[in-house]
């Protein structure tokens, strides 16, 4: 009878290529991440906006079919105006776009929280416990390592951004019972997927770069918070001051206009008095319209929102969803004299979206440089 060696037996088969080696790192990271109760809770909460999105799209589908089920909700939707409610199909793309815009804006915040829970320890713990030799003593290249780690973030962001968008889209489509909805709204789905990929690449690489800078995941998390909160607050402060400056200019113009109209003594004739008051009112309206128009034009070159990191992500998403065009179309249903004010209040930042994309690309480049410098393969480890 043959006697078999019970000791270690070498693998005699073929090794797989490099294409999927990163997947082992991703799988392991996902498995560890899913054990985190806080992360699971955050992801459950992150699905709540998706429920609202799905609900909104379903309601719109029912509205298009003029279903009785949606009649109790018509009162709540009265803010949209009769023109939109009477022709829901004509405004389908615009309503879907704006629903997705609000969804993505909300999910942007949840994504930052998910990255905060998952990201800081990805590389910092490997550095802390000297796990780099464990990785690079195996036939794994640095790119496999980075893609593997990025895959972990991509997985969780995908669950928070892409999967809910897809599910909501399918539900909205089902409730619409109209095949023309697919060509009308498919770009939205593509925009969501693109946005998810953008977040993964940009925010994912950024958090990996930060994680490689410190052995303490706590400081990495704080740094991430700094980038998120502090840049947002700084952007708001700059916008606030800028707004003060513009208000100051507007008040100055208004004051000058009043002074010019009120130059001279008040007429005694009531007819003359009434005429002067009408003149004042018309001049004030004209000035207000001019101010709003200036604001709208000024917003196209206002760089201050770019200071906020999340603002840049939102701006690119806003462009890909084409929400500006949707707001413009909905603005046509608003009376002309209130239109500019409506657009000013409703539309987000209006500076060129490629400014944000460029800034994100620069951050991407910096992240890559940091990772290249901080994570060394075995032959270059100290």
């Amino acid at each position, binding site marked *: 009878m043959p006697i078999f060696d019970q000791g270690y037996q070498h693998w005699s088969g073929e090794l797989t290529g490099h294409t999927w080696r990163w997947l082992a790192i991703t799988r392991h990271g996902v498995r560890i991440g899913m054990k985190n109760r806080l992360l699971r809770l955050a992801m459950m909460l992150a699905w709540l906006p998706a429920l609202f999105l799905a609900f909104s799209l379903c309601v719109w589908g029912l509205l298009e079919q003029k279903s009785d089920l949606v009649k109790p909700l018509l009162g709540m939707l009265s803010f949209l105006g009769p023109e939109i409610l009477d022709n829901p199909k004509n405004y389908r793309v615009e309503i879907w776009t704006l629903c997705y815009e609000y969804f993505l804006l909300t999910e942007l915040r949840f994504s930052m929280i998910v990255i905060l829970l998952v990201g800081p320890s990805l590389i910092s713990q490997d550095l802390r416990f000297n796990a780099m030799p464990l990785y690079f003593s195996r036939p794994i290249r640095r790119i496999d390592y980075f893609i593997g780690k990025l895959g972990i973030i991509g997985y969780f962001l995908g669950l928070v951004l892409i999967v809910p968008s897809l599910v909501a889209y399918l539900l909205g489509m089902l409730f619409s019972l109209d095949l023309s909805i697919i060509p009308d709204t498919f770009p939205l789905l593509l925009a969501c997927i693109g946005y998810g990929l953008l977040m993964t690449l940009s925010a994912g690489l950024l958090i990996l770069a930060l994680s490689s800078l410190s052995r303490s995941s*706590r400081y990495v998390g704080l740094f991430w918070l700094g980038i998120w909160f*502090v840049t947002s607050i700084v952007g708001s402060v700059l916008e606030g001051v800028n707004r003060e400056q513009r208000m100051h200019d507007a008040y100055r113009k208004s004051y000058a206009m009043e002074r010019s109209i009120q130059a001279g003594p008040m007429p005694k004739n009531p007819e003359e008095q009434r005429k002067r008051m009408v003149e004042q009112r018309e001049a004030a309206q004209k000035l207000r319209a001019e101010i709003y128009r200036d604001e709208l034009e000024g917003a196209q070159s206002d760089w201050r929102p770019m200071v906020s990191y999340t603002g840049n992500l939102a701006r690119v998403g806003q462009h890909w969803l084409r929400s500006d065009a949707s707001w413009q179309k909905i603005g046509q249903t608003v009376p002309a004299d209130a239109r500019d004010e409506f657009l000013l209040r409703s539309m987000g930042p209006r500076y060129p979206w490629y400014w944000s994309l460029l800034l994100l690309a620069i951050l991407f480049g910096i992240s890559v440089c940091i990772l290249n410098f901080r994570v060394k393969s075995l032959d270059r480890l100290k």
Partner: protein
Amino acid sequence: MKDVATLESSHSASPGHRATGGFSWIALWTLYTLTFRQHMHGRRWIVMGVLFLLPPGLAVLIRATAPDAPSIVTEFLLAFLLIPQALLPLIALVYASGIIQDEQEDQTLTYLLIRPIPRWAIYVVKLLATLTTTVLLTTIFTVLMYAAIYLGSEASFNTIVRRCSIAIAIHGLAVVAYCCLFGLIGLYTKRALIAGILYTAVIEGLLANLPFGLRFVTIIYYARIGAYRSMDFIFTRNGRDHNVAAETWQIDVKKDPELLDHPQLLTCVIVLAGASLVFAVIGALMCARREFHVKTPEGS
């Protein structure tokens, strides 16, 4: 083998070395300076410094891009919005949440536990050193910020100094309270960062902005009222007065011009100082009774 009787006779106290009792001021002072050096070495304070250079940098930027914006508005936005709502909690989280946790994770806590320093004293002394660091950094950068806002402006030197001093006092009290709170949270949970963020975002961020009741449990409310009672935030534009603080913080000065519904300045100081003391005492008591698993840290 020598017996213990022989050993006991050889416990000859070197003078000043074998003092009876568990307290050594030398040891406490050494721990204080050690903690201060830990905070100041390395990249941490550089990163904090960059963060705190943000308000002076912003002040310069604002003066360059919006020269007509009133200085009081800039001061309010930077000194009483940006710093207390974002920067102070951040600096407190960085320094205070890891008072004991950092030592535990680095496995250097053993060297402190085996010294003749009571456990509660280890916590208190490290907390004091942390407060020194944070208050010092806050003071320096507040001064820089006020210089950036007011240098070359029409405000008198005395006014600038007075306003700056009040801001330093308010920031100092607030950061002390945050540090004591986050130090306690750091003892209680490993996830002090998440707990601190949730506290800052939900409690300080949301509750403090409510125009009723629950804002009394927030640190920032007392900092705001203290600031409001100590200085004015009124600027005049085109013949009309605007109170930027009242508008932003939803203080109804029309209905309640004397702010009778809000605490007095002394009350605000006492509440902040008292809360800090309570958090510190609780933390010291926790530290006195707790075991710290250094070789196999908890949760690993």
